[in-house]
Every structure is written in structure tokens, then in C-alpha cells.
């Protein structure tokens, strides 16, 4: 998956610290790329989706992440919506190569619909006591409602 940040574990002395650092970096990637949801760059949306998947896999790999299960469930839903949006973008490209303009139009309409759903799910999780609150607290981000502010 492209654009994954390198994780440096220097100075880490325990498993908990390592997990915290890993999740912090992966969550930060998502936060960095979230603007794609309000822009018009399909590649940026795809990169944001991949960052969400990296974060989800990182949480799921950690067996004691019970408190963060709602986060992985939400990330999975977001990735599904944005995955469908990406499929529509690719379909529009293939259809365009065949001069199938009606198919292009329909695929792009669907892309917008899926992207809107993904955006709602993502931003909805930043409400006070929202789905991302435990993750933000665990990874050391200051939780102050949207937008998140790093300490």
C-alpha cells in the first residue's frame, strides 16, 4: 500500500509503547490525508482509504485492542464506501477508453454518492464522545472535538 510512513521504534522500551507509537503514526497518516474527502482528487481519496486500512490492520493485529473494536468497525465501513468509490473511478476510466460516455456518467455519479457516505462516516466519528475518542486518547492526541489537535 503506497505512502506508508516508516515507523521508528528507537527509544521504545515496552510493547505498549511500541503499539502506541505505531497506532499514533497510522492515525496521524489518516488525519493528514483526510482533506481528500472534501477535495476533487480521486488519487488522494484512494491514498486516504489505504491509510485507513493500515490503521485498521494495525489495531486488529494487537490482540488487546478490545476497546478499539468500534474504531476498526467504523474504519472498515469507511474503507468499504471509499473502495466502492474507487471502483467507480476505475470503471469510469475503462468506460472512457471504450467511449462509453453513459457508463462514465453513471460511474461518476456513484463515485460521488459513495464518497459522500465515507465522508459522513469519517467526520461523524469526531463528535464529542465519538468513535475515535478512545483511539485519540490512547495515541496521545488531544481530544477536543473536531478538528483533532496534536499535543
Amino acid at each position, binding site marked *: *500500500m503506497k505512502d*506508508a510512513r*516508516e*515507523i521508528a*521504534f528507537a527509544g521504545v522500551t515496552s510493547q505498549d509503547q511500541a503499539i502506541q507509537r*505505531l497506532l499514533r503514526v*497510522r492515525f496521524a497518516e489518516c488525519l493528514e490525508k483526510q482533506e481528500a474527502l472534501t477535495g476533487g482528487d480521486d488519487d488522494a481519496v484512494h491514498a486516504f482509504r489505504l491509510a485507513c*486500512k*493500515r490503521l485498521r*490492520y*494495525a489495531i486488529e*493485529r494487537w490482540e488487546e485492542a478490545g476497546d478499539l473494536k468500534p474504531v476498526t468497525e467504523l474504519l472498515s465501513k469507511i474503507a468499504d464506501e471509499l473502495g466502492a468509490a474507487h*471502483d*467507480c473511478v*476505475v*470503471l469510469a476510466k*475503462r*468506460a472512457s*477508453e*471504450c*467511449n*462509453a*460516455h*453513459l*457508463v462514465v456518467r*453513471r*460511474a461518476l455519479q456513484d463515485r460521488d454518492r459513495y464518497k459522500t457516505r465515507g465522508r459522513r462516516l469519517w467526520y461523524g466519528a469526531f463528535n464529542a464522545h465519538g468513535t475515535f475518542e478512545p483511539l485519540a486518547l490512547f495515541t496521545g492526541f488531544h481530544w477536543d472535538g473536531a478538528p483533532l489537535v496534536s499535543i
Partner: protein
Amino acid sequence: MEKQITSAADALACHCRKPRSAKRLHAARKALARLRAALEDLGTLAGAAPDFRERVWQLHRCAGKVRNADVLLDRIEGYREYAAQDESEQLREVRAALRKRRKRARSELDRLLRKLPELRA
């Protein structure tokens, strides 16, 4: 990491036994995606060899091409149910193009998998 490697190998072996199955291909790709993510997170720490990473990346990419074609062909079928005649004709052309792409992608994946003889057993 060991768990992710075993899981990806099992899923690929399962795919090799029935390479036309979209479900098995999807399962293999998902397992490869998890292995790839594990390597990105912990590969340096675990001392993963660069050529092993590269093989995982390649397999994931190739499996992705087949999977994308499968998904798009399903979507085309969905569109066809509610399409007027003009659009149906266009959908048929796109479907034919996607089938060709899928065939090429399957061959590419098969070539890669042949380089992993332990999975063909």
C-alpha cells in the same frame, strides 16, 4: 508476523487449487494486504528480507488487478439490470474489455505463482 505469513500462504494455496474462484482470490488478496501492512509496520524490526517484501508487494498488486476486474464486472452486471438500450450496448463493450483485462491479469498472477512452487503442491 508469522501468523500473517502462514495465513497468506494458506490463502494463496487455496486460490491455486481453484484459480477461477473470485471468492478465493479475494481471500488471498486480503491475506496479502494484511501481510503487506504487517511488513510496513514491523518489517524493519523483524528483519524481513527486501526480496521477500518485493514478492509480497508483487503478488498483492497482481491479485489486485484480477480482483478489480471481478468487482467491475459485477458492477457492470448490476448496471445492466436498469440500463436503457444505448447504455446496454456501451456496457457490453466495457464488459468485453474488462474480461480481456482479467484474462491478462490472471495469466500474470499465474506466472508469479509458478515461481512459488511450494504453493502449487
